[in-house]
Every structure is written in structure tokens, then in C-alpha cells.
């Protein structure tokens, strides 16, 4: 039977088209006539319909010749059988009149305006055919002052058309609520904060408002809406595991500005300030522009060939004298998959050793380990997009609004929409005011708290028995463990009242779909891996696995931590997580590479330092990682690397680590190279070179290929497609990955043949077959056991939005003007006890050493707890951190350090001046 078309279609100017559910008149017309056919001013695809400018007015009738009504297309829902008239004389006149009204209060210096040619007002005015303005001169707002207070954000509100897109972007996308409309009617105007400047307002410079503004009324210093650019290249941000897509505008070999693509599945027209604005480091004068070779104790410029020759000579000698196991490599989670793959190949094939590790060691190695133990796959089970489908969000030991800003703002948006949010963190992080539950535990007691959560879920009978019996194992043992818990003791240990824990447990377990996220506050502990498994327990016992809106989702720190581990930059597993000491894998690798490969598990990073100090390890190759600053117990690291015979460092800048190198190779940044990054939701995304490598530098992948060739390995020249194809042949879950097949949106692994990705893992069965419960009773950290008496405060560390890691890149951008130093957060009660006032210089000392920084009095921490960031080398906060590690993975315990503090009376004269911008 032929379906009556009128029940599924509507007409546009007489032509019939099939409607889709959720269509507004505008979406429908946009789809069939193209965006712009109906002019719009206040509508933006990334924002909810608003209906204020009315230039999208169309006429609608229920019969072709029936009475017509004028409606705003952008917010009027479409119904089958509607007849839409987009060009009637009536609506054309109306649109013209509206635009005419707008133009009566607009400067109209279009030709000199930064957005000339890309201004929505200009386009709409041309489209509606303004011929003249009938209004005489009158009061206007053309004399409004510009705001140039901020390193990035600018405004010139004389060009404002009061469409509120900026306000809505700040509210609906970022969730910062910085902008608002002040006054009414003709006096209505955009204000920042309580009517101040961008700089003084609580703006976090995400740039969402600038991107949303249809004119140049709000913009940025890079004039990202201008049409200056000759090219736009889509690539992926290098600053965190969210993996935001960026549209980079260039002219010649200059980067002009960055915007967020509207259609990106990862970031939907959003970024944080790092992705959007922190790119000026690329051409910073501090960039290394030539290889450096140590001659007579000093690093001297050299040619690439000289540097390579020096490396080949030394590594060949060391390998010959001491064997391949005397060499170790540290790869970088900032580098591409291809580069990480090549790096592990170089070490494994070139030296016959598994001494290869990556900075994942110091962040998410416990996640990979713990989740593999529980589920079989060491990666996020779900996608960030699933926030749309979840009914409860639990964030454990993570501070997403600072560490993973775009995901953080998505979580905030969901919480604002009423999705219950549980925060388990020792600090009152930015999300806490939006949360339903905040379990503010003592640092280092995650296991105690999560065990208690599990207990209350079990006690309330909220377990999913069917899921447990059918899909999991070891339940009985786990249940016995829960029964054996001493709740009084646990409560004393973690310090959170048990009713609060119980309420959160019930919230999580009774939600239809509950989604857990965790960060470094889980992993960087002596029981990091165990904590990850404990989170997995919670998900399994409540059946929160294998469908949209659930799962265990690590918030990966650096942009490609996932990829570095996937590619085999781990001493126990090669590319694709195959255990190196398993005979069949070993055979596979040897056959694949046609070379001798070691079947012994190699050294983890902390073990490398030990081996170096013990004299077993002679040479190291470090790619893009400033271990001196970022690894714990700085003095220990320095001693280790200075005891090496030979150290090669690949870097963008001269870092404290590079100072110790024998050869420094200048690498290209992410904007200068191509390859792939894998974000925290397993999405393999293409990184595209935006500009040519800075003169004198080479992409890390090219460097690795060239050195392998010179070391006599058969390695073709570097191409991202070529290396990806090789990866696809050895990494099982990359099987279907091809450069073209990844498309603009990227593909989530496992990638099957044909390029088909996987959004959700463990749908019908776990990777390891049955999901495994593990019960762990709480154990006190050795750091606390050993030092708490003498050093009664617990220092915990984290990061802030504005800076990335030790700030090598971000401190060479405008971000440095926004946040200039690390500060120590201290509870006012403790401060009073120690006679410390806000902004006082304090000395923080531990069993290892001491640092100085300014105090910031804050109730975000509880008494007894101190908190700081580690972005500024001036402070070298890792001088005080311990060498305690996660027992399973040796991931360092950054989050719990026993310290004491005191006020410093004379200001510290030795403070190193901040880097220049």
C-alpha cells in the first residue's frame, strides 16, 4: 500500500519532502534548501533554538491555500502536512524591516571590520536586500568601548546585535555563566561577570562565545572569524585525552587561529583555551631549531647527520659492550600512534629488549592493568557521548573541568539538567556545587571508600544478580570480602560519614544506567590498580556494562596515553597488548619483525632509574617527556639520568631533562606533523600537519625512521599511512584501520575490517570471557605509615585548566598571563595554626626535600590536606614527592605525600623568573 505522503511529509514553497522526527521548520528547510536559505541571526547549530531575532520568519499554512501564519522557523516544531512559505512577499518584507532596525544601531564599518566577508549580519542584510534605512539619526550604542583586557578574549560591543548567542554559548556549552544581558530594551547590553572585563570576570577563555557570536562583537585576539586564512586544516588537539578536533586557519606557513568544527562528534563546536588558543608556542623563539651534541661537556649545535652519526656510534658501542638490555626508551603520550609504534619497534627490534615504557606509567598504567584484569581490555568501555543517555554520573578522583575541560563541561551540563552527579574527591572541585553527592575522602583511601560503596549496594539488595551470574566470576569470594568489612574502621579511615556513602551507593546502584569516570586521583596511588578493579566491581555488581550510558571510563591524561599503551610502549606487552613473555606472541613478533625479540619483560620507568643508578642501564632514549620535572622524587631522577653513559632526548624545547642529554634532537610539534591520536574513548583520529615543520626540526616519526635506517634496520621512510598500515597488520584491534577509512570523525577501536568501529565494549561478553570480581581490603599507603608522624600534612597534587603538564608548551603562550604560578591550597584553620596568611610564602618539606610557594587559603581542601599543581618548574614540586608506587604497575603515588609546612619570613631570592611569552 502506498503511504499517504501527507502523513510523513511537509512542503517547502510547494515542494514536498519527508520530515524527520525532532525537526523544526528551520532544520527541515536547512536540510532541503541549505543553511542560509532562510536567513537567521540568533540561531546557531550548536545552541538550543532561541527565537529572538525573528529574521527566520516564514509563513505556515495547514492547507496549500489555507490561512497563513507567520512563525519563527528556528523554534517552531514541524508537523506533517504543513506548508511552509519561505519567500513570500510578506516574510521578505518583515525580514527586511527587522534587519533595517538592527542596522540603525550598527557601526557599519564593514570594510575594516575583522569579520568582513564572514559576518552573519552582513550576509543576512545582503540576502534580505536592504535598500535603505528610513529612520533618522538617533540614540545608538556606537560609542561602546572595546575590551582588550584579556590575553585572548576581546569584545567590541558597538557591534553587538543582542542575539544572546554568546550568553547561551557560555551557559549551554561551557557552563560558566560569565556573560549576561544587562538592562532591558534599548539599554540591554552584554556584560561579563558583574559588569567587568573579560580579564576580571570568571571567564575560562574557552572561546565558545567568540565562536558563537555572529559579528565581531565578541572575538579573540587571533581574529578567528576573519577570512584572512588561505587554508583550514582539521586536526586533533594535543593537550588532553578528550581529543578535541580543531579547525586551524593558516595563511602560508603561519597559523592564524583555531576554531572548533561544528560537526565534530568529540567536541561539538567546543574546546578549552588550550586547544583553541595555546598554539603560539609553535614558533616561540625558545623552540629548538638544530640538533645539539654534547662536546666537551657542553651541548653544541650540530647537523642532523652529525647527530645521527654520534648516536649510531654510541648506541652501537653500548649494545656491543653491554647488550641490548643496557638500553631503554621512554616514549611519549604526546606523540602519535605511529611514532609510539616506531619507538617501541626501534627499542624492541633494534636492541632486542623490552625496556620500553611511556609516561602512561606515571598516570594511567593502573587503569590499563586493572581493567584488563577485570574486563580484559584496558580502555574506556563507553564513549563520552553516552553522557546523553546516562541517569547517574560518578566521578572518582578526577577534576574534569580542569583536566578534561570539554568533557568536564559536558558533565556539568548534564548535572544542570538534573542528572545525579556523585563526586568522590578529597577536594571541593568545580563540579561539586553541581553535584548531588560529594564524598570528600582523605587522600589515599579510595579502596576503603569504594569498598564501603560496594557494601551498601550489596546491603540494599541493589545488585544485578542476573548479570553477576551470567557474565561474571569470583562473586562468592567478593561477597565474602564485603561481609568481612569493618564499617567503623573504614569510616574512620576515609573520613566520610557512612550515611553519605550509603546515599551515594543507592543513587549509583538504583539508576537505570550509571556511568563512572575516573582520573589520576584513582591511579596515582600505591593501590591505584586495585582501585581501578574496585571501580570495575561496582559496575559489574550493578550490571552497568555493555550498553549506552554505563561503564568504567578513565579520563586519560595526555592526549595519546591510550595510544602509547595500545602501540606497545609498555615493557610487558608489545603492540596490541600481547604479553611479551607468552611463547606464541613472542613467535608472532619475531616472525612479524624478522628479528630477534626479547621474551623477557622489560623495565618500567622507575626500574629504569634504579637500573641506571645500579650501573646496568647505560643508555636511554627519551621522546618528548620532561622526566626531571614530571616524575616524582626529582633528585632521584636526576641522579639516575646523570649516571647514564648516553642519553638522547627528542624535544621541542630545552627542558631540564634535555640539559642532561648527550644528543638533543629538535622535534616538530603536533601542528607540524601527521599521524593519529587515540583519545580516551578509544577513538583513533587523524592528526594532519597544519604547517610545515619549523626549519631545523623533524617530526618524531621521521627521526625514528631515519635513525632506524642508520642503525641498519630495514625501515621504510616515514609516512603516516604506511606506518598505520603496518600497525593494522600487527595490532588486532586496528585490523580495519586505514588512513582514509578513519574519516574526519575518527573511529573507535576495535576497528573491524571495513573500518567499522566499536562504540561500546563488552556488550554480550567481556573481552576476557567473564568479568572478574576482585576484593581488596584497604591498606594504608607506606608513605603515610612511614612519615605521617613526622610530616603530619598530606599534600596532594593536580593540574589546572590553563596549563599542560610542566607547562613547556602552555607557558609559552598567552596562558602564562592568565595563571602565573603554582599555589598551595591550605585550609584556613591549618593556616591559622601555622600562622600563615593568604599569599604568604611557605616552605613545604618532606622526607625527600623541600619546595617553596605561595599559600592560597581555601576551604576546597579539608584541614590536614594541602593541594598544589605542578606546572611551574620554579617550584619543582616533585622534589618532595616520594618514590612510593602502585604495587602492580609502579605508577608513582603523586597524590599522597606526607609533608609539613611553615611560613617563610624573608622572600625567596632565588625564585627563577617566569618564562617569557
Amino acid at each position, binding site marked *: 500500500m502506498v503511504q499517504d505522503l501527507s502523513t510523513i511529509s511537509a512542503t517547502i514553497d510547494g515542494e514536498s519532502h519527508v520530515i524527520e522526527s525532532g525537526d523544526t521548520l528551520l532544520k527541515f528547510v536547512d536540510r532541503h534548501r541549505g543553511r542560509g536559505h532562510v536567513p537567521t*541571526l*540568533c540561531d546557531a547549530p550548536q545552541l538550543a*533554538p*532561541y*527565537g*529572538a*531575532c*525573528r*529574521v527566520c*520568519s516564514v509563513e505556515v499554512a495547514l492547507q496549500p491555500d489555507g490561512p497563513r501564519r*507567520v512563525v*519563527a522557523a528556528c*523554534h*517552531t*516544531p514541524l508537523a506533517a502536512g504543513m506548508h511552509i512559505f519561505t519567500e513570500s512577499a510578506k516574510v521578505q518584507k*518583515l525580514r527586511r*524591516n*527587522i534587519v533595517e*532596525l*538592527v*542596522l*540603525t*544601531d*550598527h*557601526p*557599519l*564599518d*564593514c*570594510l575594516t571590520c575583522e569579520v568582513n566577508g564572514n559576518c552573519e549580519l*552582513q550576509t543576512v*542584510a*545582503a540576502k534580505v536586500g*536592504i*535598500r*535603505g*534605512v*528610513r*529612520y*533618522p*539619526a*538617533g*540614540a*545608538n550604542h*556606537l560609542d561602546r568601548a572595546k575590551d582588550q583586557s584579556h590575553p585572548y578574549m576581546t569584545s567590541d560591543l558597538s557591534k553587538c*546585535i*543582542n*542575539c*544572546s548567542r554568546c550568553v547561551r554559548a557560555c551557559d549551554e556549552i561551557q557552563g560558566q555563566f560569565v556573560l*549576561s*544581558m544587562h*538592562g*532591558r*530594551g*534599548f*539599554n*540591554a547590553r552584554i556584560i561579563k561577570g558583574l559588569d567587568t572585563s573579560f580579564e576580571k570576570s570568571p571567564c575560562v577563555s574557552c572561546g565558545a562565545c567568540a565562536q558563537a557570536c555572529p559579528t565581531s562583537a565578541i572575538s579573540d585576539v587571533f581574529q578567528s572569524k576573519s577570512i584572512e586564512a588561505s587554508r583550514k586544516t582539521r586536526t586533533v588537539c594535543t593537550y588532553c585525552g578528550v581529543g578535541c578536533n580543531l579547525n586551524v586557519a593558516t595563511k602560508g606557513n603561519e597559523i592564524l587561529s583555531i576554531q572548533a568544527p561544528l560537526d565534530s562528534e568529540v567536541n561539538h563546536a567546543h574546546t578549552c583555551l588550550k586547544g583553541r588558543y595555546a598554539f603560539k608556542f609553535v614558533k616561540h623563539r625558545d623552540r629548538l631549531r638544530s640538533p645539539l651534541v654534547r662536546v666537551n661537556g657542553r651541548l653544541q649545535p650540530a647537523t642532523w647527520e652529525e647527530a645521527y652519526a654520534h648516536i649510531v656510534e654510541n648506541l652501537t658501542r653500548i649494545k656491543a659492550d653491554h647488550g641490548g638490555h643496557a638500553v631503554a626508551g621512554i616514549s611519549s603520550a604526546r606523540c602519535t600512534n605511529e611514532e609510539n609504534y616506531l619507538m617501541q619497534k626501534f627499542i624492541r627490534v633494534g636492541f632486542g629488549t623490552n625496556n620500553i615504557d611511556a609516561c602512561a606509567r606515571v598516570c594511567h598504567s593502573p587503569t590499563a592493568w586493572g581493567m584488563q584484569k577485570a574486563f580484559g581490555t584496558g580502555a574506556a568501555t563507553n564513549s563520552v557521548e553516552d553522557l546523553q543517555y546516562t541517569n547517574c554520573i560518578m566521578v572518582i578522583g578526577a577534576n574534569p573541568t580542569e583536566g578534561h575541560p570539554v568533557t568536564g563541561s559536558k558533565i556539568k551540563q548534564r548535572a544542570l539538567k538534573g542528572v545525579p552527579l556523585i563526586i568522590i574527591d578529597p577536594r571541593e572541585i568545580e563540579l561539586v556545587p553541581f553535584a548531588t553527592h560529594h564524598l570528600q575522602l582523605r587522600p589515599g583511601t579510595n579502596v576503603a571508600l569504594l569498598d564501603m560503596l560496594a557494601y551498601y549496594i550489596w546491603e540494599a539488595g541493589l545488585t544485578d544478580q542476573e548479570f553477576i551470574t551470567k557474565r561474571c566470576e569470583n562473586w562468592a569470594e567478593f561477597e565474602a570480602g564485603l561481609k568481612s568489612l569493618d564499617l567503623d574502621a573504614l569510616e574512620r579511615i576515609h573520613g566520610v560519614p557512612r550515611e553519605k556513602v550509603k546515599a551515594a551507593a543507592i543513587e549509583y546502584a538504583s539508576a537505570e544506567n550509571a556511568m563512572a569516570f575516573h582520573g589520576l586521583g584513582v591511579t596515582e596511588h600505591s593501590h591505584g590498580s586495585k582501585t581501578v578493579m574496585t571501580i570495575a566491581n561496582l559496575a559489574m555488581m550493578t550490571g552497568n556494562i555493555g550498553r549506552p550510558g554505563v561503564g568504567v571510563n578513565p579520563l586519560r591524561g595526555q592526549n595519546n596515553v591510550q595510544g602509547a599503551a595500545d602501540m606497545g610502549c609498555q615493557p610487558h606487552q608489545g603492540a596490541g597488548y600481547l604479553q611479551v613473555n607468552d611463547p606464541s606472541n613472542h613467535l608472532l613478533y619475531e616472525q612479524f619483525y624478522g628479528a630477534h625479540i626479547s621474551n623477557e619483560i622489560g623495565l618500567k620507568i622507575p626500574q629504569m632509574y634504579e637500573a641506571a643508578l645500579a650501573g646496568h642501564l647505560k643508555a636511554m632514549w627519551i621522546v618528548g617527556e620532561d622526566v626531571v620535572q614530571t616524575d616524582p622524587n626529582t633528585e632521584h631522577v636526576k641522579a639516575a639520568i646523570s649516571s647514564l653513559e648516553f642519553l638522547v632526548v627528542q624535544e621541542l624545547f630545552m627542558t631540564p631533562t634535555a640539559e642532561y642529554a648527550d644528543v638533543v634532537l629538535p622535534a616538530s610539534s603536533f601542528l607540524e606533523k601527521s599521524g593519529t591520536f587515540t583519545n580516551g574513548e578509544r577513538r583513533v583520529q587523524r592528526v594532519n600537519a597544519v604547517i610545515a615543520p619549523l626549519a631545523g626540526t623533524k617530526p618524531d616519526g621521521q627521526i625514528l625512521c631515519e635513525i632506524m635506517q642508520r642503525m641498519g634496520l630495514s625501515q621504510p621512510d616515514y609516512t603516516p599511512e604506511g606506518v598505520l598500515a603496518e600497525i593494522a597488520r600487527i595490532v588486532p584491534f586496528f585490523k580495519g584501520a586505514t588512513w582514509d577509512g578513519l574519516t574526519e570523525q575518527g573511529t573507535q577501536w576495535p576497528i573491524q575490517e571495513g573500518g567499522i568501529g566499536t562504540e561500546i565494549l563488552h556488550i554480550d561478553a567481556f573481552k576476557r570471557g567473564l568479568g572478574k570480581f576482585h576484593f581488596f581490603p584497604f591498606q594504608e599507603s607506606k608513605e603515610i605509615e612511614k612519615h605521617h608522624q613526622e610530616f603530619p600534612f598530606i599534600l596532594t597534587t593536580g593540574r589546572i585548566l590553563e596549563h599542560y603538564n610542566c607547562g613547556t608548551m602552555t607557558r609559552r603562550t598567552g596562558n602564562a598571563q592568565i595563571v602565573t604560578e603554582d599555589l598551595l591550597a591550605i585550609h584556613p584553620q591549618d593556616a591559622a595554626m601555622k600562622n600563615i596568611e593568604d599569599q604568604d610564602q611557605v616552605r613545604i618539606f618532606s622526607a625527600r626535600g623541600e619546595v617553596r610557594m605561595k599559600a592560597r587559603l581555601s576551604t576546597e581542601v579539608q584541614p590536614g590536606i594541602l593541594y598544589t599543581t605542578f606546572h611551574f618548574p620554579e617550584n619543582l614540586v616533585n622534589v618532595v614527592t616520594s618514590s612510593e608506587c602502585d604495587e602492580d604497575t609502579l605508577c608513582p603515588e603523586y597524590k599522597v605525600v606526607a609533608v609539613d609546612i611553615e611560613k617563610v619570613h624573608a622572600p625567596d631570592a632565588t625564585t627563577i623568573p617566569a618564562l617569557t611569552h
Partner: protein
Amino acid sequence: MSIHYKPGKEPHPREHRLIFKNIDRADWDNGIDCYLRDGGYAMLQKAIGMEKAAITGEVKASGLRGRGGAGFPTGVKWGFISPTNTKPVYLICNADESEPGTFKDRYILHQDPHQLIEGMAIAALAVGAKVAYIYIREEFPHAATICEKAIEEARQRGFLGKNILGKEGFDLEIFVHRGAGAYICGEETGLIESLEGKRPYPRIKPPYFPAALGLYMCPTIVNNVESLCHVVHILRMGGAEYAKLGKPNNTGTRILCVSGDVQKPGYYEIQVGHLTMGEVINDLCGGLKPGRTLKAIIPGGSSSKILKAGETYKIKRGAEVVEMGLEELPMDFDTMAAAGTMAGSGGVIIMDDSRDIAWVLNNLNTFYAHESCGQCTPCREGSLWMKKISDRIVAGQASPEDVTTLESVAYQIDGKTICAFGEACSWPTEAIISKFRDELTSHTRPELADTPKNPVTEKAMASL
């Protein structure tokens, strides 16, 4: 029981007082004892014995139409709450009374707050609201205090709070929320935003119809003070009996707020449609000022279209259509609509021949330009331009074509905005121009026709 009023404040014999029964009573104060002495809260007691649907049924049967301006049937509105709804339901009393020419709600708030509270409690019971708000305009600080005190008294006596009057599960708390002095806060969705602590930007409809997605995105009923008070009397009389007051489809009584050029301006509660405009002026209000003739009437608050003396209107009376002059028009919803205007909020503004219509127009334009919330482009820019142009007409600085421009601005607002403020601000201009074009034009100077336009906008055109 006979009621005594304060001397000089006695109701006019043609009034029919229900909700203003206690206003200006001699032996009356706004305390609960007074209200109870007179049988107060008996209707709440009665409602408690009724099914929810039966209460709404009585209100539907009464034919009560909202007294806030739009005249929407109250019972029908209550019926919009979806029977399958599981979210909390909110009831809001709109006490923002700011329509120029309207001054009725304030007397209830000041003198008879318990009548409102009783009406709200009955309404809350009917729609299933456990939380209700009185959104009161900023300029009534004293009324806000009075309402708060009254709410406290009602709580003390068990008319509010938990398990009201012993009825298990009937809980209600009423909160007074004070506005901050904006006309737009009276528009129900702007009011809701304001109550949520935001800028009172009216919401787009669809999708934000209050009965579905109102306060905190929950179903919400917004009713005017006077509308809610009528509910008490509907329960007392029964819906059918109440419907016998007034006229079919225009039932009950309503308060007219008469201002302007009459001998005795003030408030008068009449049966809807029982008095003509002429009777209102001549009987209730003692006629025009000596020696004056009627020029025009704004019949339902400043937003309603003006009616001009000497006009005739075709009004349906049963099956036949009769032609009537202005003074013959009965004061009811349907007649006003048929005359091309609206009964609106009951604010009747009488103007005699001493009034300069350009000044009237400018006065209205000034008000609306000041009150536009600024969200929609046509309203924000247009309301200001209407003011600016009428400023020049009054000042004798306008050309005749400016009148045409003014008219076209109005037509570009009306029906093309997010909220009904668009109509509220443009209808008066549209009507005044169409009815008084000659008088307005007489203020203009043809020789100004060719004066140069805005140089800025000229430049604009050049660069586009």
C-alpha cells in the same frame, strides 16, 4: 448578614460584589480572624471533600475566564496538566499587576489576602500542586508583607502546611516572591524565569507552555489574583449557579478599574456584560467632567486597542448582528473582541476631548520602549523607534511620512515576537494611527519630508 462599608466607599448600587465584598468594609481588617468570622476557609473545607477532577469540573462549568488579560478559561487551563504527569506541579499567582490602567489585584492583596490564599489552596488541590508562589510586583512591598503574614496565619490554623485540615497527603506551602520592577515579569513565562532567579526573558512557545514545561520545567499553572479569588465563590455557589452571573461565555463578575476623564474614577465590580460602556461612564463614574465630550476609550488596559467616540461596531446578539455606538457596547469579553479590541485586564481609560492623541500615543510608546525586555529584535528595536518617532510627532519635528513609518514599525512587531508584549506594544499604535491619522498628521510638518536620513545608516547601505 449585612455588610457595612467605610463612609464614602460604599459600592455603587449597580455593582455586584463577590470578590470585592470585603474591600473597604468598615469592620474589616486583613487578619485571619476577620476572614474566619465571615465564613472564611469554609470553601477549602468543602473542596477537601471533593475529588480533584470535580473541583476543576466546577470551575469549567462556571465558565470563568482569566482576569489577567488574555481571558483564557481557567478550568480548561487547569485541565492541561497531563493526567500521566509524574513531576511536581506548581501553582503561581500572578500578582505582578503592572498593566497601565489596572488597579484591582492590589486591593485584594492589601485588604483581603485570605480570600486569595483560600482560592490558591483550592486551586492547588485541584491541580495537585504542593508548592505555590505569589509573584508580587516590587512596587507592592506592603502587600508582600501582608501576604506573608496571612500565609503564616493560615499555616498556624492548618489551612496550609502538611495534611491540610486533616486530609492525608494534601500538603501546600505558599511562598511570596517579590519581583524587581519590570512589566515583563507579568508575562507568565517571563514570570517563571524570574521566579527561577533568572532574567525574565519570556520563553518560546512551543515548546515551553507552562502547563507542560513551566517552573523548573515542571507543569505549572499561572493565574491572576482575581481569577484565583473567583474560585472560592465558584465553589460556594456551584459552577452552574456562578455561570448564571454575567452572560453566557462571559460569566461571573469582574472588576473594572476606571481611570481618566470621569467624575468618579475607581474600581467597580460588575456582572460581566451587564453594563454598557455608557453606563459605566455615566452611572458608575458619574459622567464625564463638566462640558467635556468623549473622545476615546481604552477598554482593557493600555495594551488594548483604542475605541474612538462616534465609531460604530457590528456586534452579534444571538443570531442577529446589530450596529452599536461606543457607549452602547456592553462590557464583556466577546463584545470587546467583536469591537476589535479586548476586555483585557479590566483597566478602562476614558479620554475626553481635552486630550491630545499624539501625547497619548507618545505616552504609551514611552512606557513600552521602557519595558521591552529586549530579547526579540523587532520588539527591542521597534518599541524604541516607535517612541522616538512619536517623540518627534509630539515635538512637531516629524514629517507626515513618519506617521506611515511608525505604523509600519508597529505592524512589524505585532505577531512576530516571542511574547504577547509584541502585540501589547504595537496594538495601541496601530489603532491610534488608523483611527486618528488626521489628528496625528496635523502635528507634522510636510516641509520636513526631505530632511536627510541617518548618515550612519546611509553609510551602511553603501558598504553592504
